[in-house]
């Protein structure tokens, strides 16, 4: 059975349609990721699932309850962490956690187990007596996340939970999400980190108020049509200039110290030899690679621009 069912959902702000007719269903116990550019409507959708705003058209059901009528029932089974959630700045780290644990009526023995887990991810234990207001930006975010994860709701909605969170903690956070999911919780999460999309069961690519595709991350990646090469170089910009004038090239994207170049067709060895010579010693290596979700995302944005 689906835990969240969204049918023809439309939301307008003034005259602007922020969400333009969405159909989506999230399986019970699923870990569902929403990715898309800022302003695409992800937050609007998540707020609507949490009954915080009503659809102008269409419907949303959560565990069979209608967000238009049954908001009390929905709110009792849903946990929501909004974007840029702020805590009680004048309570300490430990007091904030305790406050939310009691609010959600988490039994004491369970509180202890969960706290240990959350402290490990957040690395906040040494700072448990510090006021929340005095934490760094990412530490605040991790505390807010810990407060949201201290109980185990049936449905968990997290809007950009890893905003400003460092790479090591992000990794540990996703491990916790997986253990929560294993307990049966359904999770809906949005993110700007494309590597996190890989960690979801299913992902929706959300652009311009509409869902373009929904699928398993592997299937999304399989949609990429072009042969893709990762090219390691000494200097990125001269190499971009070089490939910009090559007619077989479809797109060029920077990926850290490498370029991802997609071609209309696989270039033959002779072409590579030419480019290597032209680049002098700037081209260090090349390798045909599988596209990542970030490649898919960028490709999608390119094709929307056209």
């Amino acid at each position, binding site marked *: 059975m689906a835990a969240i069912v969204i049918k023809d959902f439309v939301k307008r702000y003034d005259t602007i349609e922020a969400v333009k007719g969405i159909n989506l269903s999230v399986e019970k116990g699923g870990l569902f990721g929403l990715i898309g550019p800022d*302003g695409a409507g992800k937050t609007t959708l998540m707020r609507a699932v949490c009954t915080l705003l009503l659809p102008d058209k269409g419907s949303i059901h959560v565990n069979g309850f209608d967000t238009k009528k049954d908001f009390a029932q929905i709110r009792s089974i849903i946990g929501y962490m909004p974007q840029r959630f702020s805590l009680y700045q004048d309570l300490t780290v430990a007091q904030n956690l305790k406050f939310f644990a009691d609010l959600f009526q988490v039994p004491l023995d369970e509180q202890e187990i969960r706290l240990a887990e959350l402290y490990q991810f957040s*690395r906040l234990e040494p700072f448990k007596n510090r006021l929340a207001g*005095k934490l760094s930006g990412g530490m605040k975010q991790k505390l807010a996340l810990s407060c949201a994860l201290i109980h185990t709701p049936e449905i968990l909605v997290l809007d950009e939970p890893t905003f400003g969170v460092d790479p090591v*903690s992000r990794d540990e956070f996703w491990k916790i999400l997986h253990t929560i999911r294993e307990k049966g919780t359904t999770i809906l999460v949005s993110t*700007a980190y494309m590597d996190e999309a890989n960690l979801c069961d299913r992902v929706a690519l959300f652009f311009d108020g509409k869902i373009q595709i929904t699928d398993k991350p592997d299937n999304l990646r399989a949609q990429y049509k072009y042969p893709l090469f990762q090219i390691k170089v000494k200097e990125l910009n001269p190499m971009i200039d070089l490939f910009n004038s090559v007619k077989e090239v479809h797109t060029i994207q*920077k990926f850290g*110290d490498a370029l991802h170049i997609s071609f209309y067709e696989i270039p033959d060895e002779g072409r590579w030899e030419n480019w290597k010579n032209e680049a002098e010693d700037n081209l260090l290596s090349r390798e045909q690679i599988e596209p990542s979700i970030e490649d898919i995302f960028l490709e999608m944005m390119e094709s929307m621009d056209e």
Partner: protein
Amino acid sequence: MSNSVYAVETTDLTRRFGKFIAVDKVSLNVHKGEIFGFLGANGAGKTTLIRMLSGILAPSSGQANVAGYNIYDQTEQIKKNIGYMSQKFSLYDDLTIAENIDFFGGIYGLSARILEERKAALLQKVGLADFSNRLTRDLPLGFKQRLALGSSLLHDPPIIFLDEPTSGVDPKARRSFWDLIYDTCEMGKTVFVTTHFMDEAEYCHRVSILRDGQIIALDNPRALKKKYGKSSMQEVFVHIVKEKDLE
């Protein structure tokens, strides 16, 4: 600006909050025109360091010169010679785009003529020329951040501090933001930037990795990868953060 080849020089720069040491004897020299990255786990001290270098927060001890001015008694000059984009706040959501630019122009004391000129150029550059009367709130984050960067450059400072400018920004908008960073650098400015996206670390000329307020590593990305025997800055970062856990 001074004759020194360095935009920023610090020696044993330290900041305590009570007994806690947030920035611990940081010594670094940053060249004019460099893109210099600060990496580090949450709470490592990046923002505290930037706030000191921007003349906003007084150090507890140590020395620093920013744009040739002393960090203890020339903070007013420092503020005129730097741009600062903070991690939390960059623009007023309830002002229009044009009003935000005017506001920053006002803070920096630009004449009306110069402000109008720079405003027009900035709006053009970030692709918002036709939207200047829109509320800033309605802008996608990627645009907001580019506008904020432009606004903090209105007074043409030689140094700019960017604290997590791309957090929450999507992959395409992040790439456009970095194009702007490169433009800024080509104008001869020194750019300090913090990020939790490790691909962006690769775009810096040099990066320093902070842990518990101390600089653990400082070099160009290629040298750091070589030193730690890793193939990406992501791996270098994880190694340095976790190294501490093993102690």
